[in-house]
């Protein structure tokens, strides 16, 4: 399949560029590639809700930020030597990424279950607005939470650790993020072909058909929404560690929009679309952003072009129309 080849090329491109930059001594580019990798993972997660399940969520920054705050809060307590919780049971801070990820993913899963349970009672524009509203609530919670930096956010002075790796090394941290991206791609690929994925796709294509087949649309969508939020949370935790910072900006609706933009650029519902979208996004931000502060104008023009003329996004241009099962 042509799309399979394009996907493989896109996946291979990230480590190739990272290795090339490393060989040339350009650590800054390794960081950029890592950023694209992490944003791609967030896009992969959103794409499960947006592309497969047809849920146009403008609230996924909430899950991205929750993952980011998990990393920030854990690191903050390790640095300060204080427990995260003193009562009823003592929970110490940790700088171990696997534990942080687990906590962040679990918290985001709970948040997604609560937000999804209410939002999925609505559809269309109402769903977009209500997910946005919930994400804004989480945003203002972050802004007002003085213990964790309030508006200023939390610095992560020392990048959190992963067993057996030196995460402070740009290349090793890239490898870790890339492994997470691969796991995310594999997960979404597998879920899409499973019975659950088929039901989720039918919830997007024709809800009446799904119900007439004896499958309730609402819980299928909710499960897809939760899974999607959990993947985005992992991306958020990595993103905070990449930047050495977490704060309300990770929770803001701009971030939700950014993730959605890179999914649309790459191709809604296309497995590796977010990879293409994230690379293009970071490239634009870096090079055009270096030339002009108005780089988002040009990104907007490209987005307009994609929406008007290339509904399959970049993947659609490279690999043709979506395959029909």
């Amino acid at each position, binding site marked *: 399949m042509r799309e399979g080849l394009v996907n493989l090329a896109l996946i291979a491109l990230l480590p190739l560029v990272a290795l090339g930059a490393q060989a040339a001594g350009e650590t800054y580019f390794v960081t950029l590639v890592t950023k694209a990798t992490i944003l791609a993972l967030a896009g992969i997660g959103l794409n499960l809700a947006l592309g497969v399940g047809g849920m146009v969520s403008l609230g996924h920054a909430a899950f991205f930020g929750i993952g980011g705050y998990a990393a920030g809060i854990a690191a903050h307590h390790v640095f300060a030597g204080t427990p995260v919780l003193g009562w009823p049971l003592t929970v110490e801070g940790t700088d171990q990424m696997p534990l942080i990820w687990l906590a962040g993913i679990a918290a985001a899963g709970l948040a997604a279950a609560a937000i999804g349970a209410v939002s999925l009672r609505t559809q269309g524009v109402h769903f977009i607005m209500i997910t946005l509203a919930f994400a804004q609530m989480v945003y203002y919670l972050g802004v007002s939470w003085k213990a964790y930096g309030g508006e200023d956010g939390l610095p992560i002075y020392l990048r959190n650790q992963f067993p057996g790796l030196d995460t402070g090394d740009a290349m090793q941290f890239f490898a870790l993020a890339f492994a997470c991206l691969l796991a995310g791609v594999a997960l979404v690929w*597998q879920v899409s072909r499973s019975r*659950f994925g088929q*039901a989720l796709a*039918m919830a997007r294509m024709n809800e*009446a058909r799904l119900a*007439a*087949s*004896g499958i309730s649309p609402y819980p*299928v969508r909710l499960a897809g929404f939760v899974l999607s939020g959990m993947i985005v949370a992992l991306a958020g935790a990595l993103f905070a560690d990449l930047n050495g910072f977490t704060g309300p900006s990770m929770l803001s609706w701009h971030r939700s929009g950014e993730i959605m933009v890179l999914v649309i650029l790459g191709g809604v519902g296309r497995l590796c679309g977010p990879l293409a979208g994230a690379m293009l996004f970071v490239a634009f931000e870096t090079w055009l952003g270096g030339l002009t502060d108005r780089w988002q104008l040009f990104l907007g023009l490209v987005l307009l072009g994609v929406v008007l003329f290339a509904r399959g996004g970049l993947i659609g241009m490279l690999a043709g129309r979506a395959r029909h*099962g």
Partner: protein
Amino acid sequence: MAEPILALRGLSKSFGALKATDDVSLDLRPGEIHALIGPNGAGKSTLIGQIAGSVVPDAGEVWLGGRQITGLSVAARARAGLARSFQVSSLAMEVSARVNVRLAAQGRAGGTYRLWGSASRDSRLAAAAEAALARVGLEARADIPVAELSHGERRLAEMACALALAPRVFLLDEPMAGLGADGTARLTALLDGLRHEAPILLVEHDMDAVFRLADRISVLVYGRVILTGTPDEIRASREVREAYLGEEA
């Protein structure tokens, strides 16, 4: 007389001052095709909606196989054994008929929250879908997007979805609508045999098909069942003729 498989008891539904369904009671017995006819605006679609679960009745009960299903959702009713075809084809247009039919087989088989394995390579689902597609004669056209199928082929695909559910009752809303002569003949033959697997409540405008197939016919006028009887009884009824000819005094 055999116990009815599907029973409606005193169903009523009003929209404002309009009584769309007025105290309707109906039985669907094992092995029969029970046709529901009536002039346009008689409330057939509203009644179908109340049986399928998409319209909530103001009063009355729906029983399926001795179990009350009045409060159940559309999906729960489908799981309980009610297969419904839509008046306007309701299929996922961008995928093939096979994918649509396979999902019905999946609904029947369960395991909706299974995250492992591949639905398209599941041999049980594939066999069920293939069998249903073959029965409506759509095997050769099963793998192209539904959007590229003709109107008649979509009706057949919808019928295949209903078959793949292996239901206890078929609820078919104008399955012949828009079919050519070939399609109508094919579907008539299919329904004729199908009644022995599960009884059929058939809403249909094609009177030839209705009188050829139906064991019993109920006539719905202004939301009320004015007569239930054999095709001969219906044909002989002055009341029915008046209702259809609009000569009510």
